[in-house]
């Protein structure tokens, strides 16, 4: 009985797992695709406002962040490569480097959001608005920005926010993988989890590669 139970629990099909994971990545991509579709529709209907609003974003900071994220994808690949070649220690260092770069991206993003908040461009809950902490630039009233710009910033916060959430999930996962490598359950022979973690990280990276030009460059 025990042997049979273990046979089911440990039934493992690497190709099948990879297929399942790619399908999962596909659903993540489609989740963002809906956002991109909304962006495309409003960009075409409010072109001037989108251009004006985009000028408020700092292209340099965006570019720095892009470089950071691309580098983190590189360290991720190198980490997997190192693990496959048997240098566990190097793999761990590179994995930590990836996490660090991800966190750096988040910190820079945080400063960027903070700068917008200073200019009263931020998302506020209805309760907060009622309590007078409102963001008059985005809520109906005399001070409200043109509707196109309201849409732009709304999409900007929600899309970069969702992306940041994915970075947090990815980084957390990497830390767990780091722990598993230390324990030895992920090792040069059994590196599927690190590979999938890497795929997820590259997806997050790819999404940013689309976010960056759409918000920072096409002004």
């Amino acid at each position, binding site marked *: 009985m025990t042997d049979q139970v273990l046979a089911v629990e440990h039934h493992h099909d690497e190709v099948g797992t990879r*297929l*399942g994971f790619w399908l999962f990545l596909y659903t993540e991509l489609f989740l963002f695709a*809906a956002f991109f579709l909304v962006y495309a*529709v*409003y960009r075409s209907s409010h072109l001037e406002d989108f251009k004006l609003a985009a000028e408020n974003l700092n292209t340099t900071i965006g570019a720095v962040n892009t470089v950071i994220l691309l580098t983190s994808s590189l360290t991720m690949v190198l980490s997997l490569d190192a693990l496959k070649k048997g240098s566990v220690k190097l793999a761990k260092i590179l994995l930590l480097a990836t996490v660090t770069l991800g966190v750096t991206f988040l910190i820079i993003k945080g400063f960027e959001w903070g700068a917008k908040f200073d200019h009263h461009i931020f998302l506020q809950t209805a309760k907060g608005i009622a309590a007078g902490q409102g963001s008059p630039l985005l809520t109906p009233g005399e001070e409200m920005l043109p509707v196109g710009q*309201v*849409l732009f910033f*709304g*999409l900007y916060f929600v899309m970069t926010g969702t992306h940041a959430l994915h970075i947090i999930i990815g980084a957390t996962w990497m830390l767990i993988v780091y722990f598993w490598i230390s324990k030895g359950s992920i090792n040069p022979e059994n590196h599927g989890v690190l590979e999938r973690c890497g795929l997820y990280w590259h997806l997050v990276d790819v999404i940013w590669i689309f976010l960056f030009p759409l918000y920072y460059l096409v002004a």
Partner: protein
Amino acid sequence: MDKAASQSYLNSHTNPKWTKGFMSWFMSTDHKRIGIMYAMAMFTFFFVAVCLGFVMKLQKMFPASSGWEIIPVEMYGSYFTLHAIIMIFLFIVPGAPAILGNFFLPLQIGAKDVAFPRVNLLSFWLYLFGATMAVTGVLLGGADTGWTFTPPYSINTRTISVLGIAFDSVSWMLTAAFILGWGTILTGINFIVTVHRMRAKGMGYFKMPLFTWSIYATSWLQVLATPVVGITLLMIVIERIMPVGFFNPAKGGDPILFQHLFWIYSHPAVYIMILPSMGLVSEIIPTNSQKPIFGYKSIAIASCSIAGVGYLLWAHHMFTTGMSDFAALLFSFLTFFVAIPTAIKVFNWTATLYKGSITLTPAMLFALAFIFNFSIGGLTGMFLGSLSTDIHLHDTDFVVAHFHYTMFGGAAFGLIGGVFHYFSKMFGKMYSMKWAKAGFGFMFIGFNALYFPMLLLGYYGMPRRYQTYPDIPIFNKLQLASTIGSWILVTGVIIVLAVWIHALLKGKRTSDPNPWNSSTIEWQTATPPTLFNFEVEPVITRDPYDYEAFRAEVKAGTSLGASHD
């Protein structure tokens, strides 16, 4: 062979930590137990929503002038929304794949389990979590938006909780739908990988039973369509709590864009609901005709083309929103186009009956009723897919009757028939044939008595979502007929559920592996199946519906089922 592993799955366990009682089910990664847990939860929700529908029909008996108000007018919106949310998100969308798909997909392809058993359990927990959220959301105020959550109404509406707390229950319900969506997506991924990787030796794609084909097509739809609606519903949540205006015209948003994004999922979702039931009918009919199904390949391919074309015609829900004439024409054409693979299936089923040796088991009765009801549902869909008639019929009871003919008379009848077909295999117990047939009779007559008058009501102009109506003789008569129909229907539903519960508790035990003499391989294993489904890994040598070869096997005693004894 290990004794424990050759026991029924009801007595042996995948999880050595939990071997007894509630936890041995709740923590089980066995696809069969998960399927049964889904069945328990889903049929409970189904019954609750049937009761809500019953009360709404009672209300419809009285015209405005009568002064009778069973549901207060300000609560009617929450009533039909709740009915719809339970029926759609908790029952019919996840229903057949989660219950019978879970149980029989691995059995039909000769696998031990699904590809990711633990993810399968996670899907079930997500379902339970989302369902709990949806149900508590009702206590906290519910939603009066309709299940479509159409903005700008869904952005601005604020419901009042029965408990008297100020609570944003609409956002709560939307989040519940989002979580339920992820459960469905994971199930879909799981089934796709299972079909690709776990088929038994010799089982090529065109040797798979048709229920497996339909679940496979459904799974693709679930994976392709659900993420979009998930994020769209979350956008409404964000819009409700923060000052962005994705779909709010006051802030530059476009509510029509929401409708596009919503129906991009929700139209394919109707095929998620109907395809598995079509698969069940494709199992029941050849079994009870003792004949190979007519046009096996064309049914398998039709499942996939319904899934494919079904993805491309969402905007036929939006003909009256003022979209461009050209787009409307295109979507109307595609709507007619999807009728082709659907009709192929109907013709194939009827051709299978021809010269078959037909046994009218309860499952067969439900399958035949499926064909009848679904034909009416499908053909009335053509009226709604035509641009000119849709203008007249849009937002009337005609639409309500149309989708109940497909979803209830089609999908739910098919699922109930499927449960009758597979009941003894699942539980090792047999139900009362007599009462099952009585339940069918009440359901079939009641169903048509309820919904056929609604087709006419819609044609005469009765709007949907209205609590009452003016005192016009034709309305009064048809509404009364429809309400009486609902009483018969509910009686039927109660009888069917009672038959199942009685069979579970006091039914006659059976270990007959194949009571209906079916040729597909899920019937060739023990009843109820052992923990790993097949004691000997099956090797497939013939087509699933090759009844001549099957009869020869039985005679020679070489079929998997016969080798047990």
